[in-house]
């Protein structure tokens, strides 16, 4: 097995409370893996366990084919970047970068060389003599990344590094991190609760909830074929529309009926057979609903009433009511809708997801 980071049978508990239980994770060398989940899902705990910053209750952590479960963080060959930057406030940027090397008693030349290289990569040479308090948020985070860089780490760990930055800077640095990954080809493990970051950066995303990995896949699979209701609901903004109902045998095969909708399910890209009679939840992303002109003549077409419209420039979000259900649709910004307008609506079944109402797994 060829993996850079491997977590085996991991359990972490505080007292009687299991924060993480029986977790398996293998990360390939050079892979960019994102741990994604709502707060409290255990993603940061997992990252800290990989870093050796918290003690595991059971299981093993391997880095580069070495069992490091009980090793000190500094001996694991990792670099880490924190949400709050965690720069040493009393040290200049240069000292911040070199602190770990100085503690490890590297030679002066070596230190200078490494600091210079990191500074060059991150373009922070002019900042070297400054104190963190004199830096902007973006600059601080670059320095924090630089601190991980100088360690020549095999594995980089990012703990929500962009969450404290404003929206524009976040985008800039996101690109920068991706560029860095392409340049260094190091393994990177990245924790975030921001799905855009996850989708844009990751080779693979591990969606976590309740201390367990729900789904570990490449971004598009996660987006298009969420393995359960939680993942489906968590990924995507605005969230996927869900309709409760049941599967029924119809003339044209299995149909979905519920909450004022009735649509044939031909063309559904499923994992298991759709058995009639089952209670299910039918999910459609707002951008996958067929709307207005697109919907005309489609099977299962219904008529929805516009509640309100949110124009967003590139496209618009329209909130509709359909029977007692409320749903959102993403559409082109070419046409304006007024509250009360009645518009046709249909479903692109090939992009739908259907979940068992009981197990919440994708069918």
């Amino acid at each position, binding site marked *: 097995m060829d993996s850079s980071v491997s977590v085996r049978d991991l359990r972490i508990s505080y007292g009687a409370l299991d924060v993480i239980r029986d977790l398996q994770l293998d990360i390939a060398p050079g892979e960019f893996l994102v741990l994604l989940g709502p707060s409290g899902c255990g993603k940061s705990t997992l990252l800290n366990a990989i870093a050796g910053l918290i003690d595991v209750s059971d299981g093993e952590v391997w880095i580069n084919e070495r069992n490091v479960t009980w090793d000190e963080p500094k001996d694991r060959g990792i670099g*880490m970047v*924190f949400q*709050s930057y*965690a720069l040493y406030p009393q*040290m200049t940027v240069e000292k911040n970068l070199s*602190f770990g090397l100085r*503690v490890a008693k590297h030679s002066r030349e070596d230190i200078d060389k490494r600091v210079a290289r990191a500074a060059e990569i991150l373009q922070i040479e002019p900042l070297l003599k400054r104190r963190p308090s004199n830096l902007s948020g973006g600059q601080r985070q670059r320095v924090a990344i630089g601190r*991980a860089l100088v360690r020549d780490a095999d594995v980089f760990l990012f703990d929500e590094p962009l969450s404290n930055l404003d929206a524009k800077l976040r985008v800039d640095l996101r690109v920068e991190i991706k560029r860095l990954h392409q340049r260094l080809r190091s393994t990177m493990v990245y924790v975030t609760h921001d799905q855009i970051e996850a989708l844009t950066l990751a080779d693979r995303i591990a969606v976590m909830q309740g201390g367990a990995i729900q789904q570990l896949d490449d971004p598009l699979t996660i987006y298009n074929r969420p393995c359960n209701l939680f993942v489906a609901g968590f990924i995507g903004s605005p969230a996927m529309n869900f309709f409760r109902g049941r599967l029924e045998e119809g003339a044209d095969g299995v149909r979905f009926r519920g909450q004022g909708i009735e649509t044939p399910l031909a063309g559904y890209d499923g994992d298991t057979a759709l058995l009639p009679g089952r209670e299910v939840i039918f999910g459609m992303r707002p951008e996958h609903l067929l709307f207005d002109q697109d919907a005309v003549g489609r099977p299962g077409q219904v008529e929805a009433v516009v509640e309100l419209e949110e124009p967003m420039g590139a496209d618009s979000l329209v909130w509709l009511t359909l029977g007692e259900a409320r749903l959102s649709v993403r559409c082109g910004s070419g046409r304006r809708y007024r509250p009360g307008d009645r518009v046709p609506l249909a479903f692109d079944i090939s992009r739908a997801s259907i979940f068992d109402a009981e197990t919440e797994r994708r069918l």
Partner: protein
Amino acid sequence: MSDPIHPRGAKPRHLTPGRIGLYAFLVFAAAFFLLPFYVMVVTSFKTMPEIQQGNIFSLPSKLTLAPWVTAWAKACTGVNCEGIRVGVLNSFKIMIPSTFLSILLGAINGYALSFWRPRGGNLIFAVLLMGAFIPYQVYLYPLVRMLSMVSLYNTLPGIIVVHVIFGMPVMTLLFRNYYAAVPVDLFKAARIDGGGFWTIFTRVMLPMSGPILVVAAILQVTGIWNDFLFGLIFAGRDHLPMTVELNNIVNTTTGTKAYNVNMAATILTAMVPLIVYFVSGRWFVRGIAAGAVKG
């Protein structure tokens, strides 16, 4: 209908009765707070006959420095008539190492409890909290005996140990609260950088503890200087701090009470904390707020 004035531009400002009352209160309060100090100062410059005949609020008719000289170098505590200067020296000898050691210990405790979560940390914390609030009387007698057993009772190191012991709770809480506000990420980063317990303490945490060190120093310097009880019980005759010396001087009289000398000695005793107070200004207030040990 009164004259229609059309409001325009800056609103006219009056010294309203309310404001006058406000200032009156403040001035009155200030007078109340200053009165004792005023009495101390004027009395210390008066001669004894003037004190006995005149009243405590009047200014000295003839300035005399003699009470100050006496208080400093000649006032008697018991048979020793060396003035309060002995106590000054003792107070410094007690205060400096006690302040240093208690802050050091408090900083280490606060740091260890905040970041390292050692086994039994909660117990330590609970006991220290208790220690900060419980009257000292509960500890005194056994402590006297314990210090006697290790031959520290009535010695300079003994009184320093006592100050360190009883300074520890507040110092620990102070540093614990301060370090609790430091992002844990910083500590984690330092660990990734390979810092051990002491490396992180000395090279990361202490350098960024400047403000709290100042606050701690103010608290300890004034607290230890103003201590009476421990000095009385633990210091031993040769290391009595200034407060105890002062009380002895005041209570040692040959003939009539030398109020002027006593007042001069009192002012001298209050001098160090007052200087700390006036120099540190805002920091002193911060010290009070910090000493309030919020959770």
